[in-house]
């Protein structure tokens, strides 16, 4: 049934909060959805990047003449002939660009796998052959990639939060404590490994630069390209309709910049697709961390002192802090409280944001330390956390905009069957398997970025939403359809949401769990105003009626609060006493993450995050070779991510937790699912074996070497 939009005040409520299959789902299961590398272009040329084989030094020569005569080769771009670009700016995320993306600007090599040339040819095969034939000679210099806790050259860095916070007398607090935990934890280098490699096609179209890309924000990438190439913002259009995963890695990278350079030089469309191997040095990664935690508590487990120090590596060309000490500023209070994030610069590729930056590794250490404290105090791990629930932000002193962590633990404990758990480790067996259960808390900030949206009432009774949002698998396109439908008070099938085009006006990116909240806010404002403007009984003109919104002012006026999603993670593991293999048997996460827009896709996203937690706890580890400075096994056979057989039935659910300050009540669910998940698994491994594994991943060899009950 279709009704005219002018009678659209008939309340059709309840789209938000009910399960809807993805609006682009049919296109995705039939292969019709076109990702960046799938969009056809006439006269397309193919670029292939060539990366450095040394970890530090200078380029002596690029043997371009040796490949220019090869069949189909059109050009070789390198530092000797590429156009100069501007990198002296601060982008819309408040940071300068990673120089890894600003390709071919000088002859210095700061790490293995640094881009040194782009070979462009008529076909992908010709480009590949010429790229592999291109001889580049180097002046090699000694490199240093040794990441370890005692680096004397480590220094504190403010990232998107201050480097250090401190209150009270830590040493006195620890000295006065009945129980103290003092432990070091490490997490390895981890890679995003989204299934779709970075791909971009650049072309000039009537004086405008057009880039068809796979990214997490067309506004973001268009802005960076305009600044880097000194173009008017209106002269750059970036589209990114379907994105095969991002997880923090899909911003401005070498593929877009080199494609623009080549399209400019050749005056024809050029596509650059990264190979899986190239992604390991060009697209960011999660830095390894070493973390030290000291907790002091009184006899019944109340914290008197808390210290969390986290160190990560960054490259020599870009400073990125993985703020592992951040979660402690939100989760637990103590009279003496100190947190510090430090970095050390090494001859390694630049790390970047990766799903729950800071929270993912930080929560592993913090929540594992809490479990150790529970053991020392003889207090149930859930009870220990409930006894340490802060009234206000431990560092900020600000009130919480909802902190329903206790409700998550209560509901989770009931559903997981936590009551009556025997706290003793190493006493449950099932054949050759030792069994254990573990829990951990989760939190992730709930933020929003300024966004604009346009909502149009069409003459045929439908509505079109235009917003430069990105659906990287989150279900944002569908969520925004539901949000718009409710704001317009029409059924979702009358709403068409168009995203992924920088021409739709500025909007926030899909990152920091902020995407859907940021965009839903803008869509709601525009849709509600449009609804008010449409008069009952008055026909919509042929060109439609459009209302635009901008949330900048509204976000600026938001009250300062500790605004976070929370969650309680539960895991049951089995540890094979003969092989040391750890298998997760079941997992449950209960979250307080704002209003859930689409339960079907929200569950998928939370379960996906928890799956990352399993993967982080047991599988993922990029190992750098000290001789070459590169990751060895830089592919999906060498870098293990969880696959079907590793992932049991995982349940995710939520408690009611609408954010009262958000028009839709949204907080954000993209990242909280991974937070605490690895700690829950590690704590369960301790419960199974009696051995604390403080270094991830918990590999079979580590389990066997650590010993334990008949292991």
């Amino acid at each position, binding site marked *: 049934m279709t009704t005219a939009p002018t009678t659209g005040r008939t309340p059709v409520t309840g789209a938000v909060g009910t399960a809807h299959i993805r609006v682009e789902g049919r296109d995705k299961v039939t*292969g019709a959805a076109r990702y960046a590398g799938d969009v056809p272009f006439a006269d397309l040329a193919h670029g292939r990047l060539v990366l450095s084989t040394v970890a530090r030094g200078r380029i002596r020569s690029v043997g371009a003449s040796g490949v220019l005569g090869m069949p189909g080769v059109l050009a070789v771009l390198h530092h000797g002939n590429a156009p100069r670009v501007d990198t002296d700016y601060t982008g819309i995320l408040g940071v300068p660009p990673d120089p890894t993306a600003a390709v071919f600007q000088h002859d210095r090599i700061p790490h293995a796998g640094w881009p040194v040339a782009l070979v462009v040819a008529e076909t992908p095969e010709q480009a590949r052959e010429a790229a592999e034939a291109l001889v580049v000679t180097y002046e090699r210099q000694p490199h240093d990639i040794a990441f370890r806790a005692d680096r004397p050259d480590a220094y504190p860095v403010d990232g998107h939060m201050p480097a250090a916070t401190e209150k009270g007398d830590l040493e006195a607090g620890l000295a006065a404590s009945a129980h103290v935990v003092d432990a070091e934890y490490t997490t390895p280098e981890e890679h995003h490994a989204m*299934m779709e490699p970075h791909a971009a096609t650049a072309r000039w179209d009537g004086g405008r630069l057009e880039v068809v890309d796979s990214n997490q924000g067309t506004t973001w990438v268009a802005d960076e390209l305009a600044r880097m190439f000194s173009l008017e913002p209106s002269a750059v259009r970036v589209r990114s309709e379907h994105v*095969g995963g991002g997880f923090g890695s899909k911003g401005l990278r070498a593929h877009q910049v080199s494609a623009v350079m080549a399209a400019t030089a050749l005056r024809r469309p050029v596509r650059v697709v990264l190979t899986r191997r190239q992604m390991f040095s060009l697209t960011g990664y999660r830095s390894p961390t070493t973390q030290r935690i000291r907790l002091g508590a009184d006899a019944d487990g109340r914290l008197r002192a808390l210290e969390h120090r986290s160190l990560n590596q960054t490259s020599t060309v870009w400073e990125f802090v993985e703020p592992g000490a951040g979660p402690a500023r939100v989760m637990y209070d103590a009279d003496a409280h100190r947190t510090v994030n430090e970095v050390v610069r090494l001859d390694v590729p630049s790390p970047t944001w990766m799903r729950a930056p800071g929270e993912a590794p930080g929560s592993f250490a913090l929540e594992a330390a809490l479990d150790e404290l529970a053991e020392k105090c003889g207090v149930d791990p859930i009870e220990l956390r409930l006894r340490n629930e802060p009234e206000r932000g431990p560092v900020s002193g600000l009130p919480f905009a909802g902190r329903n962590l206790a409700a998550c633990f209560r509901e989770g404990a009931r559903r997981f069957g936590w009551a009556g758990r025997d706290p003793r480790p190493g006493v449950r067996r099932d054949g050759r398997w030792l069994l254990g259960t573990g829990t951990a808390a989760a939190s992730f900030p709930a933020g929003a970025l300024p966004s604009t949206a346009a909502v149009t009432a069409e003459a045929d009774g439908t509505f079109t939403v235009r917003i430069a949002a990105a659906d990287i698998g989150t279900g944002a396109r569908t969520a925004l359809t539901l949000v718009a439908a409710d704001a317009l008070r029409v059924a979702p099938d009358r709403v068409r949401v168009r995203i992924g085009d920088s021409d739709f006006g500025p909007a926030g990116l899909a990152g920091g769990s902020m995407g859907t909240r940021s965009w839903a806010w803008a869509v709601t404002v525009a849709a509600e105003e449009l609804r008010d403007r449409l008069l009952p009984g008055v026909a919509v003109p042929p060109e439609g009626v459009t209302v635009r919104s901008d949330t900048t002012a509204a976000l600026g006026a938001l009250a300062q609060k500790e605004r976070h999603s929370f969650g309680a993670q539960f895991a049951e593991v089995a540890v094979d006493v003969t092989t040391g293999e750890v298998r997760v048997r079941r997992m449950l996460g209960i979250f307080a993450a704002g209003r859930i827009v689409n339960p079907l896709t929200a*569950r998928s996203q939370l379960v996906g995050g928890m799956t990352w937690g399993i993967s982080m706890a047991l599988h993922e580890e990029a190992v750098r070779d000290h001789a070459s400075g590169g990751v060895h096994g830089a592919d*999906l*056979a060498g870098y293990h991510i969880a*696959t*079907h057989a590793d*992932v049991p039935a995982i349940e995710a659910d939520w408690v009611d937790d609408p954010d009262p300050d958000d028009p839709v009540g949204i907080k954000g669910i993209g990242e909280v699912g991974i937070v605490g998940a690895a700690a829950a698994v590690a704590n369960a491994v301790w419960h199974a074996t009696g051995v604390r594994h403080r270094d991830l991943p918990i590999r079979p060899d580590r389990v066997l070497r650590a010993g334990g009950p008949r292991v």
Partner: protein
Amino acid sequence: MAPSTSSTVTLDINGEKHTLSVDHRTTLLDALRERLDLTGTKKGCDQGQCGACTVLVDGRRTVSCLQLAVAAEGREITTVEGVAEGGRLHPVQQAFLDLDGFQCGYCTPGQICSAVAVIEEHAAGWPSAVTDDVRPEAGPPPLTPEEIRERMSGNLCRCGAYAPIAEAVARAAAQARAGAGEAVA
């Protein structure tokens, strides 16, 4: 005369014959994507490790990045574009859609092609690494979640949609068995 580096081949894809000249180095995956505009089949790693490029070759799942186009002549190739029957989704596709067996969707064509073959392999009595009784006379083992996960493990999904994918495969397999039962009756 320099040796030729290309050949004319006729590929049978989704029931349609395509004759084209291909570079000998061109993989079946690149021929589909770059030459025939069949971009539903995805390139995730280009080295046989992720399963995103899975297609059916003579009914068997194959990673098309490890198959040269010139070697695919005379074989019946089915891609994700050819799985549906007319405008009606294949039961596997429908189950993926209804149960949200994907997020970003990039591994989905490979997962779907793999699932279609898994259901047929299982019905034909093929064992897997987790099958207890592998004697031919034992017949197909129960298609438990463990069996499905094992058989699907060559298809990576970084979004972590494994749980609903396993459910979707189970649902489609149950429908296929019910359909086969009807046909017998």
